[in-house]
């Protein structure tokens, strides 16, 4: 989705960039209730552990055989004592302190070594990467607790050795995660830009790549520290970690095990403490991961509804079905994205009609609302945050937006189909194109696989794919971009639609391939009387293919009419300027007529005409009130107070 641009009257160059409100990390974290709970518990545990030296606790290692195995709530020993008569509360607090310290230290060591390996392997790639990652794989081939045991067996038991063992065992997690991210980053242009700025590889790794990898390191740390505490505790439990009299949670548990039958409270209390500690750390860790993951903070993982939310105000003037029986008639459609307090008016009071067999071009700059318009027609805008707030989409006397879900689903890919800019969004990478066509056919009508396959091959033939029967066996990635787009067109044709909505279907293609696809669409449309809504940012393409054109700006259609008439004598200043700033082949070397400034942000539209800040003709009247479309000729209208004059000036200009 394109970035949301901001409004300004000055040029693009002078416009003040928007400072997006960064959602505070803590707020993101606390939004997750479990993480909040974990944080409270963890904070309490950490505070107690840190304050251990100044808390009024008994000496954890002072033995008192007379007081051995006192139950909890005994006088002077809140949690009782262990088999040597040591105060359990004090031992637990000091043990937690040690376990925490061990876990954090092991995490830091693993993060430092693992991230370094991952960064170096990912950045330099090639043989170094191969060698490093193969060794990491070897490390991972062992079950990790066995590996830790083996390491301690070699190094000998002891606190520090247990720490090393746990750290080594966890290095692969860091190395793999960090390498993955680094590989992606080191192919980014900004890394090459840093090289062009004269930086060496070491400096680039530290000052360009590392800051971008840091969030991943933090996430990996926060999600592994709990396990590392558990693993060190495990080693101590087996007597391989902390050595008596010093105790961490693991060794307290281990000691308690010996007296489990006579004094179960020792193990129970130690077990509960370990559970609380690790649980709270993991809850916080998951919370940190979710809060730092940009996809989650953008709300992208909220599952979109199958149909756009429709909450339309009662509106009298769009209620009557259109005259005649057009392929599609859109009346006063408004689609908004409602994100918190912000409302993005992506599509604002849009009306147009496509007659049967007609091709309407929808032209505009990125962010003008073309795609949202196209997706709104069959309720395909993701909700949340999308909401259709007004308008009707008429087809065969019915309002599509009032149809039941089943009818809507039957319409999609049936009588109305879509073609997108990137055919890979609609093609599954692991199935042959023939199978996918069969699937598309059988989703809408009963047919045996063999019948459907014959039709699939016929469809591929129809979109002029050479050797169609062979190509049907191909996987999407085995085809070139142009061939894939032909397959996407074949999919769109599968169920004999009468309307195809094509959203920038040729933008990603080379000009020679684009010319072929445009010619194909034009032929198909004439052959089978298809209506076409063709979305593009390119007037050249519109003039090749479309009977009529609608120009969008800031969510509104600002001008609509027959292609030739609009191109020859635009009635809206925006149309005129947009046409003028496209370089035309054959006019030689020259300065271009740029439009100053940028389109406004659709969450902060100015009053009156949205184009006024950039319009050379703007007057005070332009900045007040809604500007309705005015008819300037037969089936031609424009949303401009001076549409008639603009059009007349253009006619005279071109005649002169």
């Amino acid at each position, binding site marked *: 989705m394109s970035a949301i641009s901001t409004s300004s009257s000055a*040029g693009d160059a002078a416009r003040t960039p928007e400072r997006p409100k960064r959602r505070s990390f803590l707020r993101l974290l606390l939004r997750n209730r479990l993480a909040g709970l974990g944080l409270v518990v963890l904070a309490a545990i950490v505070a107690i552990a840190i304050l251990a030296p100044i808390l009024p606790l008994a000496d954890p290692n002072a033995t008192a055989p007379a007081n051995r195995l006192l139950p909890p709530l005994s006088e002077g020993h809140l949690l009782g004592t262990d088999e040597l008569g040591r105060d359990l509360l004090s031992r637990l607090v000091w043990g937690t302190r040690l376990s925490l310290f061990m876990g954090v230290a092991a995490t830091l060591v693993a993060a430092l070594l693992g991230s370094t390996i991952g960064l170096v392997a990912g950045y330099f790639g090639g043989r170094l990467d191969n060698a490093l990652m193969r060794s990491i794989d070897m490390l991972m081939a062992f079950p990790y607790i066995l590996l830790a045991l083996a390491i301690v067996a070699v190094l000998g038991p002891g606190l520090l050795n247990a720490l090393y063992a746990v750290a080594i065992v966890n290095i692969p997690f860091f190395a793999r995660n960090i390498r993955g991210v680094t590989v992606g980053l080191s192919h980014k242009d900004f890394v090459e830009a840093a090289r062009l700025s004269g930086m060496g590889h070491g400096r680039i790794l530290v000052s360009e790549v590392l800051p971008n990898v840091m969030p991943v390191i933090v996430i990996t740390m926060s999600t592994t520290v709990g396990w590392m505490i558990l693993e060190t505790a495990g080693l101590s439990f087996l007597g391989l970690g902390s050595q008596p009299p010093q105790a961490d949670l693991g060794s307290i548990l281990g000691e308690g095990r010996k007296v489990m039958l006579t004094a179960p409270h020792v193990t129970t209390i130690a077990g509960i403490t370990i559970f609380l500690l690790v649980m709270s750390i993991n809850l916080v860790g998951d919370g940190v991961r979710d809060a730092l993951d940009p996809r989650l903070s953008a709300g992208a993982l909220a599952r979109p509804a199958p149909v756009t939310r429709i909450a339309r105000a009662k509106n009298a003037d769009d209620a009557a079905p259109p005259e005649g029986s057009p392929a599609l008639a859109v009346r006063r459609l408004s689609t908004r994205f409602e994100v918190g307090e912000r409302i993005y008016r992506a599509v604002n009071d849009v009306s147009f009609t496509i007659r049967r067999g007609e091709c309407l071009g929808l032209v505009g700059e990125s962010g003008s609302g073309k795609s949202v318009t196209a997706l709104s027609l069959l309720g395909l805008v993701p909700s949340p945050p999308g909401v259709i707030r007004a308008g009707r989409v008429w087809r065969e006397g019915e309002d599509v937006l009032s149809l039941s879900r089943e009818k809507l689903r039957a319409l999609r890919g049936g009588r109305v189909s879509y073609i997108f800019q990137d055919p890979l969004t609609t093609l599954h990478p692991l199935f042959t194109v023939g199978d996918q066509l069969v699937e598309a056919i059988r989703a809408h009508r009963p047919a045996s696989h063999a019948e459907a396959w014959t039709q699939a091959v016929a469809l591929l033939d129809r979109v002029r794919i050479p050797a169609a029967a062979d190509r049907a066996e191909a996987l999407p990635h085995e085809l070139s971009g142009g061939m894939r787009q032909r397959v996407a067109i074949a999919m769109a044709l599968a169920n004999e639609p009468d309307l195809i909505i094509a959203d920038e279907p040729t933008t990603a293609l080379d000009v020679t391939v684009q*010319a072929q696809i445009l010619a194909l669409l034009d032929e198909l449309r004439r052959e089978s009387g298809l209506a076409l809504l063709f979305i593009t940012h390119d007037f050249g393409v519109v003039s090749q293919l479309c009977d009529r054109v609608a120009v969008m700006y800031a969510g509104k259609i600002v001008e609509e009419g027959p292609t030739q008439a609009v191109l020859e004598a635009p009635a809206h200043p925006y149309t005129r300027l947009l046409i003028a700033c496209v370089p035309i082949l054959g*006019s030689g070397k020259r300065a271009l007529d740029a439009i100053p400034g940028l389109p406004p942000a659709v969450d902060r539209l100015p009053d009156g005409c949205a184009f006024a800040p950039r319009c050379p003709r703007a007057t005070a009247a332009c900045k007040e009130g809604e500007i309705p479309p005015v008819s300037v000729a037969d089936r031609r209208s424009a949303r401009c107070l001076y549409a008639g004059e603009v059009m007349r000036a253009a006619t005279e200009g071109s005649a002169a």
Partner: protein
Amino acid sequence: MNASTAPILETSGLGKTFGGGRTLLGARKPQVHAVRDVTLAVAPGETLGVVGESGCGKSTLARMLVGLVPPTSGTIALDGQALTDAAKAGPRAFGRTIQYVFQDPTSALNPRKTIRQILEAPLIHLIEADAPARERRVAELMDIVSLRPEFLERYPHEFSGGQAQRIGIARALAAEPRIVVLDEPVSALDVSVQAQVLNLLSDLRTRLGLTYLFISHDLAVVEAIAERVAVMYFGRVVETGPVDEVFRAPRHPYTRLLLSSAPAIGARAEASDAPQAELPDPTRPPPGCAFAGRCPNVRDDCRTAPPPLVPMGRGRAAACLHPLPAEGADGPA
């Protein structure tokens, strides 16, 4: 050739092969000849446009010129001085003379750095400017690309595409290079912003006496900004010459196909008569002319060896055995 027209940038037989070598098991890995035998010369103050379809080697050529990709064969000379060990020198050796502007303006800016840090990097590492000199130069650069100085403390995500591309241009100009390689600098921008940036670029070229190598798939954009053009197909330059002449009367059939495919206002879509065969498989290039599979003029001799780029008069050259008729001529040459 006199001193004033001695080329500032020259390549000779430049080529780049990716892949190749053997796998651990000794099998040959496929080789792709991304660029083959490119010989070009750009005069100071000139803009050379490079056009061609995706995958034809434009970007690889550009990246070799700035040292991001070491060439497999051939030489590059800047200012008459051959960069003999170009393969080892890397961008640091080139950076003060030749710089690069990326296609995608936002991905070329590190999201975690302020604009000031981004602009200072070349000043620190390429020309080792001291702090006051950097301060001055950074302010000057912002002025050159018409951005307000207070933007310096902002981060890249706060800028629109057009603004980000201005920052990319400022960074390229920081160390005062004399040549700038622009790789599709306006393709990612909206048309209205595209015109703003193109105008800025031509203005800077005159003001700072720069030389451009301007890569684009859009012929109309190249026509608006360049004096000469090189058309690339399948890794080779197939036609060069003054832009207006090449576009008015192409000699290579591929150039003509490109020109007739460009969508133009007022033209209707027509089923192109060119066969729909696509680019040849780059790992198994055909022995002769790579365009033979799509060429309406193809004859038997086209399929034997790749046709060399031969002069065709008036500063023009084309790599075709049966070129299209010259302007004014009425029969096939």
